């Protein structure tokens, strides 16, 4: 729980640093999804484990940490002052992004234009990393044949039936999904975009699983569908690049998509953000389902 608070506070910190987009992401990820994954892990590995610790280790570690910290603080003395406009970080490509992107790309949110157009190749790499991590989780956790009947965890979910909560979440889930779509497609004009929208979407599904059980959730969100779509998102992203390659331009050069350069950029960014959103949402849902099914396995073994 403290971890979740940590996420909340760091998001408000990013907000105060003018990093709205980052605050948005941290709000969705740091406060919502990552503590839940931590707790899901704790539910399957057991919460408390008394351990015989070597008393020397913390002392040595503390010494090491203090020395490293002092060295780093000495290192900061040469760093540019906080908020200085002439810091080296603001000298190279950033002024160009700030000056040119409203004309070149034609959308007000510079973060989105840098993310999806200037540095689209970077972002493709990030999306592939997310996809790979999803595959990794799947192959690690579904190591035995998948059990069709997931009932124990559903029984537990059914014992603590919160009627009020159920109804409230039933009312809330559709607006959350719509809000996710808004974030997805409003990312050009305000804070938002595929990464955030994907996480918000996944959060809605997680809320559903926690109240209606895995069995019903499997009926709502088809697992094969999610698996296929997590790949399709990456494919959509990559195929934009391939389209521009086939038309004789550089990889991920959007100018082939339409006559008017800004329209082309618009289309390119829209498609790419869609790909990102689909992949992120599907991978998050997949990861969460894997964790939940694993808790089921652990409970089954405890019963034996």
């Amino acid at each position, binding site marked *: 729980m403290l971890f979740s608070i940590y996420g909340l506070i760091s998001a408000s910190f990013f907000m*105060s640093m003018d990093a709205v987009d980052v605050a948005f992401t941290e709000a*969705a990820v740091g406060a919502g999804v990552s503590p839940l994954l931590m707790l899901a892990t704790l*539910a399957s590995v057991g919460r408390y484990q008394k351990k015989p610790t070597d008393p020397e280790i913390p002392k040595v570690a503390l010494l090491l940490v203090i020395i490293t910290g002092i060295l780093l603080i000495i290192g900061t003395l040469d760093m540019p002052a906080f908020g200085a406009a002439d810091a080296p970080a603001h000298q190279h490509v950033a002024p160009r992004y700030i000056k040119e992107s409203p004309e070149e790309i034609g959308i007000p949110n510079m973060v989105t234009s840098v993310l999806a157009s200037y540095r689209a190749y970077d972002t493709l790499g990030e999306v592939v990393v997310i996809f790979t991590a999803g595959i990794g989780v799947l192959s690690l956790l579904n190591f035995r044949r998948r059990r069709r009947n997931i009932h124990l965890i559903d029984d537990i979910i059914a014992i603590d039936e919160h009627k009020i909560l159920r109804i409230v979440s039933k009312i809330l889930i559709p607006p959350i999904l719509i809000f996710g779509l808004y974030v997805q497609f409003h990312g050009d004009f305000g804070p938002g975009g595929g990464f955030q929208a994907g996480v918000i979407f996944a959060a809605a599904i*997680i809320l559903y699983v926690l109240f209606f059980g895995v069995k019903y959730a499997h009926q709502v969100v088809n697992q094969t569908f999610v698996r296929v779509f997590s790949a399709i998102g990456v494919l959509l992203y990559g195929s934009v690049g391939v389209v521009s390659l086939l038309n004789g331009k550089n990889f991920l050069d959007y100018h082939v998509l339409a006559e008017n350069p800004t329209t082309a950029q618009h289309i390119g960014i829209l498609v790419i953000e869609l790909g990102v959103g689909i992949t992120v949402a599907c991978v998050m849902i997949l990861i969460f389902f894997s964790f939940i099914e694993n*808790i089921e396995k652990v409970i089954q073994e405890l*019963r034996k």
Partner: protein
Amino acid sequence: MALIITTITLLVVIALALIRAFAGPTVFDRILAGNLIGTKVVLIIAVMGFLFGRPDFLDVALTYALINFISVIGVLRFVEITRRSREEDKS
């Protein structure tokens, strides 16, 4: 002026709620403190949007309000699930 006072109060409140979150003693106290901090952060983001003169960023506060609810409820559910699965283990 009122905006600044509100922001400072909210910051103080978050700091105080952190004490409760650290002190516990039960897990529910911690979740309560987390919930409290969550709603305060929603408010602080909204107020800060006005303070900095960019109130069109209320989307972040809205996301926060949603995610905070999901996270509090989710943590609660996981606490319950963990407890139930261990309880039956003992019996």
